[in-house]
């Protein structure tokens, strides 16, 4: 149902594509000037073309994993008592909105996968050079989307106690654009920030799938990284479930 609705609103897709292409264009101009000014071929192991390919793919992944619109709808449901209708449905609030999120993003998935399919032709030799990388990227992308949804879900559950948490979601979304490596690869960050970010699930949202696709992450590290990512998925899922369990006891059902 959501998929059909999404197909009706193609303008979202056009603006989404414009967002990616304009974003990569600005980044391209900035990094071009930096490479020219420095007069070097490499910055932290990236050639200019590798860096542009990396940022381009990061922007696509960044949009695919973002579920802030769904989150705002979920927060409104809790605030306004709209959650009542989900309580009588034979599907949980969590699963129902996960499905809605996937449905709403379906058009993006189709369009962006076309872009990704064209990637080896746009940036030959810079990404998806082996089937193993394609498979690894798809798996890491699934992990990233699921982890991202869980993180948003945790913030949504905060609204059981503090009704107005939309600002929290928006603030997280704004910070996420930089801190997950969506417009600047994480390895270009200063070491001290990298260490702090390394203790959070943020590197698994964008940097991990893109590093696999572009060959920046050695294959022998994939398994351990996937295990850590899955642990984060489990942790955030359990946290969300626990918060919902206690939060629903606070829920009045009559709206804020």
């Amino acid at each position, binding site marked *: 149902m959501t998929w059909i609705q999404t197909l009706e609103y193609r303008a979202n897709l056009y603006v989404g594509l414009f967002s990616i292409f304009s974003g990569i264009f600005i980044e391209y101009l900035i990094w071009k*000037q930096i490479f020219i000014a*420095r007069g070097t071929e490499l910055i932290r192991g990236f050639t200019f073309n590798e860096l542009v390919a990396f940022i381009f793919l990061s922007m696509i992944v960044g949009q695919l994993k973002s579920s802030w619109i769904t989150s705002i709808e979920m927060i409104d449901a809790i605030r306004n008592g709209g959650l009542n209708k989900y309580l009588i449905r034979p599907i949980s609030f969590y699963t129902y909105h996960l499905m809605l999120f996937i449905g709403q993003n379906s058009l993006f998935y189709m369009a962006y996968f076309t872009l990704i399919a064209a990637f080896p032709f746009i940036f030959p030799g810079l990404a998806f050079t082996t089937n193993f990388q394609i498979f690894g990227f798809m798996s890491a992308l699934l992990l990233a989307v699921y982890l991202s949804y869980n993180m948003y879900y945790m913030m949504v559950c905060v609204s059981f106690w503090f009704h107005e948490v939309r600002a929290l979601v928006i603030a997280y979304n704004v910070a996420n654009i930089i801190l997950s490596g969506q417009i600047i690869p994480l390895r*270009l960050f200063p070491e001290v920030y990298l260490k702090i970010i390394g203790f959070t699930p943020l590197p698994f949202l964008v940097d991990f799938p893109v590093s696999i696709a572009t060959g920046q992450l050695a294959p022998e590290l994939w398994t351990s990284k996937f295990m850590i990512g899955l642990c984060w998925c489990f942790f955030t899922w359990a946290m969300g479930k626990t918060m919902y369990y206690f939060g629903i006891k606070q829920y009045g059902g009559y709206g804020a």
Partner: protein
Amino acid sequence: MEAMVRRYLNLWAAFFANSLTRDMEYKANLIGGIIVDIIFYSVQYFFFSIIYSYVNTLGSFTREDVMVFLIITFISDTVYMFLFSGNLFPLNRLVVQGDLDFILLKPINSQFLVSFRFVKSYAIFSLIILILMLINQTSLHSIDIGPMNYLFFSISFFCGLIIWYSLDFLIACLTFWFKNFTVGSWLSHEILKFSARPDSIYIGFTRKLLFSLIPMALVSSVPARMLLYGLNLKLLMYQIAISLSFLLFTFWVWKRGLLRYESASS
């Protein structure tokens, strides 16, 4: 003319008082808005910190120039939030649901009411902090920045704001033609991000485009240049001409849009 200006200023003061009362009732919204602003500013600052850890200048903008540019961008954003952000976003809903009728019935200019009815009062706090930051940053700057620079900056800043408003308003007005244009605010946000980077990164055709048809370089970069490097009369006159042209264009588009408006049956 003077009486009309005074009347509209009084009206806006009444809108502001009303909005402030509403905002004070929802303190969580107020605090949330301030937090989002702080995070947004921090993220932008962090972005340029990383960029400038690899290079000393971006075109003609040094690191300290970019800090001034950034604060000006934040001030533009905050003033825009304060005056317009609560008004243009709901225009789509007003047109789709036919609620624009209630605005058209009022005995004042409908574009004024649609554009200024709600004020995001929490932005005042951010604005005060940002202005103090700008004064501090310019006083520490290696270039001597005098009061005349501030005067030309103020004119240029005002023109930049008109351009921003005009572009956002024109995009919002597309709802008259597309009937339901919910992506309008997203589209304008995506176009406006060109103004959040110094104009020195844009070259060739892009630069020409961002100084003319989509004049995003005139929103923050040109005011920053006026403040840092002093008056560039040709550039300032050009900016005034562009901002007036865009503003007049909004009047025309609004009138054309209203002709297409079909009230509650839209």
